[in-house]
């Protein structure tokens, strides 16, 4: 067995606001994860009934709901949901459907309005989805009472920089659902970050094929070899919690898969430059680079107009990478957060929507740039960056494999524990009983 170097952790677990100690690994067994869950329309329907309509889901960025009357339309599976900020400053969520004949009442991805007027027969709803006007109401012999025909409201709450909703009227409080997440992520102050990129890519794979792709570092050597000069992919701390999980990926470290850890390649130089650290002035080697960048950021934060006082030293370089069940994956760094949201297709288990959003912490006093316009396209029509293009290039072929009679199911390593934990959590929702891996 190859023995690799260890990557040193510099964070002080006692002082760190974001807990950084290793959580005990659960015993989730070693069974094959069945492939049918990625391809079966029956499984997809069960997922909808027992999971998607039961959990909390991220609905909108608060920056899109700043002013009374602002609204966002978000789609999940077959549903379209309207999220609003009403005249009292409260957030609301309701189905995007007119109670009369079923037409949608909100158009486009976002906007500002004082009421939603259905384009079909001009029924009108306020910012809470309450019916306020029915033309020719006297022609409904059964009545058209506004109090009974308001749009079905959904639980709605705020955490971080986002408004959340649930299609489950009996859902637990958002804070219970999120569990340890706010304690872990509030120190990053993502509510102060600017949204700088917002795209949706249509991928030919199941939504879980995409979730799995981002929650293990085992694929880095195969899929992203160009990152190994500045990202550790083996000595990675994995932590699983009740529903959610994370791993902590050392950045600024030469991969321990590379025998000579002293090298400094173009990737490492780029990593240093990105953090305002001049690689030409660095006299050390690859083994000391991560600590040198951490010290540089700690010493120069104030000068750079950035506040890292709530972050531990490892958070200054590393990727604290979280999965908020079921469909949010975060790469969180001291100055940025990259969010992936996987949304299932309306009807086809072999398709999905991949939302990619990038958030940036800007130096104090820097005005936030205008919100980028959201764009949607199919895989391959545009690059979404070298690394994500590489991930994307695997997915359609993996999905084809899931449909193959020759594929037995997922054979999972300990490096892929988060995948097993994610599927275990999904199974908990689907079966309401202890995990059952095998058919």
């Amino acid at each position, binding site marked *: 067995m190859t023995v690799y170097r260890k990557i040193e952790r510099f964070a002080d677990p006692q002082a760190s606001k974001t807990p950084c100690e290793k959580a005990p690994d659960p015993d989730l067994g070693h069974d094959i994860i069945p492939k049918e869950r990625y391809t079966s329309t029956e499984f997809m329907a069960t997922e909808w009934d027992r999971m998607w309509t039961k959990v909390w889901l991220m609905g909108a960025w608060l920056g899109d709901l700043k002013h009374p009357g602002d609204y966002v339309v978000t789609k999940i599976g077959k549903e379209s949901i309207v999220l609003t900020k009403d005249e009292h400053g409260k957030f609301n969520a309701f189905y995007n459907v007119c109670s009369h004949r079923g037409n949608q009442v909100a158009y486009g991805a976002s906007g500002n309005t004082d009421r939603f007027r259905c384009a079909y027969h001009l029924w009108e709803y306020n910012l809470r989805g309450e019916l306020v006007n029915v033309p020719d109401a006297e022609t409904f012999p059964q009545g058209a009472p506004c109090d009974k025909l308001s749009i079905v409201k959904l639980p709605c709450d705020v955490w971080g920089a986002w408004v959340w909703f649930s299609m489950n009227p009996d859902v637990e409080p958002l804070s219970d659902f999120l569990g340890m997440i706010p304690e872990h992520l509030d120190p990053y102050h993502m509510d102060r970050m600017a949204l700088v*990129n917002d795209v949706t890519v249509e991928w030919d794979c199941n939504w879980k094929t995409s979730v799995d792709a981002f929650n293990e570092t085992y694929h880095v050597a195969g899929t992203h070899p*160009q*990152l190994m000069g500045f990202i550790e992919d083996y000595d990675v701390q994995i932590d699983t919690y009740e529903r959610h999980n994370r791993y902590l990926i050392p950045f600024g470290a030469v991969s321990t898969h590379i025998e000579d850890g002293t090298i400094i390649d173009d990737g490492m130089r*780029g*990593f240093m430059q*990105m953090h305002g650290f001049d690689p030409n002035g660095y006299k050390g080697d690859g083994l000391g680079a991560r600590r040198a960048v951490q010290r540089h950021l700690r010493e120069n934060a104030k000068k750079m107009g950035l506040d890292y006082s709530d972050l531990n030293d490892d958070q200054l370089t590393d990727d604290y990478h979280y999965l908020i069940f079921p469909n949010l994956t975060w790469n969180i760094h001291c100055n*940025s957060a990259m969010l992936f949201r996987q949304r299932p297709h309306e009807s086809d288990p072999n398709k999905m929507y991949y939302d990619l959003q990038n958030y940036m912490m800007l130096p104090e006093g820097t005005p936030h740039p205008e919100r980028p316009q959201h764009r949607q396209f199919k895989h391959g029509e545009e690059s979404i960056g070298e690394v*994500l*293009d590489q991930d994307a290039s695997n997915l359609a072929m993996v999905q084809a494999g899931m449909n193959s009679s020759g594929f037995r199911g997922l054979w999972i390593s300990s490096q892929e524990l988060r995948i097993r934990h994610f599927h275990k959590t999904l199974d908990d929702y689907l079966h309401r009983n202890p995990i059952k891996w095998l058919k």
Partner: protein
Amino acid sequence: MAEVIPVLPIAALGDGEMTRVTANGVDLMVCQVAGQFYALADRCSHARQALSNGKLSGFEVRCPLHGARFDVRTGACKSPPATFPVKTFPVTLEGGKVWIAVSSDDKPPPPRFGPI
């Protein structure tokens, strides 16, 4: 601004052969196929591997790591896992040498983790 730079003697590369050259700081794959010389960025558009370490079959070069194929005449991507083409460079033959028009701006940016 592209400069036209001699990169190797014509005689150094037989038909069906390829090699790596560096001009203006840019790594290039130069090959001769059916009597014509071609030059491409020596970097697979998928995962940055040197195409010159791969396999040349007719007009197609195959990436050594993941097997993506590209047409050496156009740089067009012919198979997954690559999606996008590889840049090609104009080649001229003069004075017994292979000349390539290449700018230092064609040097690839360093690998980075995110799109932003």
